[in-house]
């Protein structure tokens, strides 16, 4: 059995190396089997050398008995089954997700670090530890029982959420890659709704969120691959059928028995309000959802988005005070937000913040957008207070 584990983990390792470079192959299961089979052959080849030389006895006919048989009773999709397999409680939730993202979604260490808002070294160590503990925990490719599937669902949802986000917010400008990541995440989440074991309100909420976000995929990027901010998007490019499907799943995400308030419910609610163009209380609703979201889980991005919604409801002046309390001076979005909030009343201060944001961001597109904005503000300032002479 130990041999099988080693082969399985080596196969995963190989998969992660190859998929990270070449992308996930068309049929990941077949690919994994082929690699695993070759590894087994290698193993027995070495073994046979060992046996013939040391024991002078030919190895028994072993090949056919050791072929991998993947039992797909409860989860039929191979990719999904693998994600469930890797999300083993032998590791912490964070490590499980790292592993699933690296091995099965083809993420690089850098991309995982971005998704977790942490340093690549931390992720590297985490992956190392996770692989070791899987090995120690007798990791096997086998079908899971009902209880295991149910208890692993949360982690799987989180993995799919991050997979989608990487596609949606990715730093890469390759739109094709982005769309593929998003649609793969949607496909896998959709599969979860088709299985009675995983067809839960949080799954529906996550799917609703993905539909709402996907509806804007076409509108949020120009042909050059630059991100178009929400306010400047051409709303006619929003995909109405996806919005309708989002609505459908959001309704399904609530059931009579419990008051579901997961992160996915709240984020789907926020995304829903973003798709409605006119409602007097739209931003008040969004702000209240952000208030609840930040109570569940603090993140700098949620804190900044909440403050943006606050500005929409109570005006930029009050929001500046609220924003400055956040004290996220090392975060480029923080300076972008303050730049935006100051732009009407204090262009000088706005420019200062935008410049700090340019210094902090790694994205060229963002630097471009901010530089344009600084030029606009500089002209405006000069127009209002023409310099003497």
């Amino acid at each position, binding site marked *: 059995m130990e041999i099988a584990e080693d082969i399985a983990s080596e196969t995963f390792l190989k998969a992660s190396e190859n998929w990270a470079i070449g992308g996930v192959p068309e049929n990941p299961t077949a690919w994994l089997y082929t690699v695993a089979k070759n590894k087994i052959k290698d193993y027995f080849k070495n073994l046979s050398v060992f046996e013939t030389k040391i024991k002078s006895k030919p190895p028994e006919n072993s090949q056919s008995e050791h072929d991998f048989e993947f039992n797909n009773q409860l989860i039929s999709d191979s990719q999904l089954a693998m994600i469930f397999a890797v999300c083993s409680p032998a590791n912490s939730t964070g490590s499980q997700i790292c592993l699933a993202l690296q091995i099965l979604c083809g993420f690089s260490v850098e991309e995982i670090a971005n998704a977790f808002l942490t340093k690549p070294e931390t992720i590297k160590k985490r992956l190392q530890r996770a692989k070791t503990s899987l090995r120690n925990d007798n990791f096997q490719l086998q079908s899971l029982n009902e209880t295991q599937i149910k208890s692993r669902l949360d982690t799987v949802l989180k993995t799919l959420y991050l997979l989608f986000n990487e596609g949606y917010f990715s730093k890469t400008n390759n739109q094709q890659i982005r769309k593929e990541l998003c649609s793969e995440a949607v496909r896998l989440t959709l599969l979860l709704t088709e299985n009675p074991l995983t067809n839960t309100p949080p799954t529906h909420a996550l799917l609703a969120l993905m539909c709402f976000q996907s509806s804007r995929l076409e509108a949020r990027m120009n042909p050059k691959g630059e991100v178009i901010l929400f306010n400047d998007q051409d709303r006619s490019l929003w995909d109405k059928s996806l919005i309708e499907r989002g609505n459908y799943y959001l309704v399904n995400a609530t059931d009579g028995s419990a008051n579901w308030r997961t992160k996915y419910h709240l984020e789907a609610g926020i995304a829903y309000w973003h798709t409605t163009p006119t409602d007097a209380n739209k931003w008040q609703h969004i702000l209240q959802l952000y208030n609840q979201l*930040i109570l569940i889980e603090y993140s700098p991005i949620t*804190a900044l988005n909440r403050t943006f919604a606050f500005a929409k409801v109570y005006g930029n002046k009050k929001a500046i005070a609220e924003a400055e309390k956040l004290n996220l001076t090392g975060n480029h979005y923080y300076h972008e937000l303050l730049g935006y909030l100051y732009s009407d009343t204090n262009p000088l201060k706005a420019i200062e913040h935008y410049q700090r944001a340019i210094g902090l961001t790694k994205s060229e597109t963002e630097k471009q957008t901010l530089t344009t904005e600084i030029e606009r503000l500089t002209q405006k300032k000069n127009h209002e207070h023409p310099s003497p002479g």
Partner: protein
Amino acid sequence: MKEFALIFRLNDMKDFQPSPEQMQERMNWLGSIAAQNKLADKGNTLLPIPGSAKTVKPDHVVTDGPYTEIKEFISGYIVVRTETIDEAVEIAKANPIFKIGGSIEVREVLKRD
């Protein structure tokens, strides 16, 4: 970092049921603390209504609610995480409870290990 419990007191039972606007104000206040990553515990609301509140006294004398004998009653609490008590007091000052004559007691939490 230290932790401070903010204990809310109200004078009037009718203030206990907030209007939707008051609820929004409270949530904005709570959300603002969480957005600064200073919320250690979102705490709980303590129901003062008959059937939900009793006080047990020496000789096992049980009375209904805390509100029969004292004017003020505790309506809830949260725990914030700040460097100093002054910072916790500043946070408390922004709470809309003062508009309806309530008060907030700020108390440092000494953790039992």
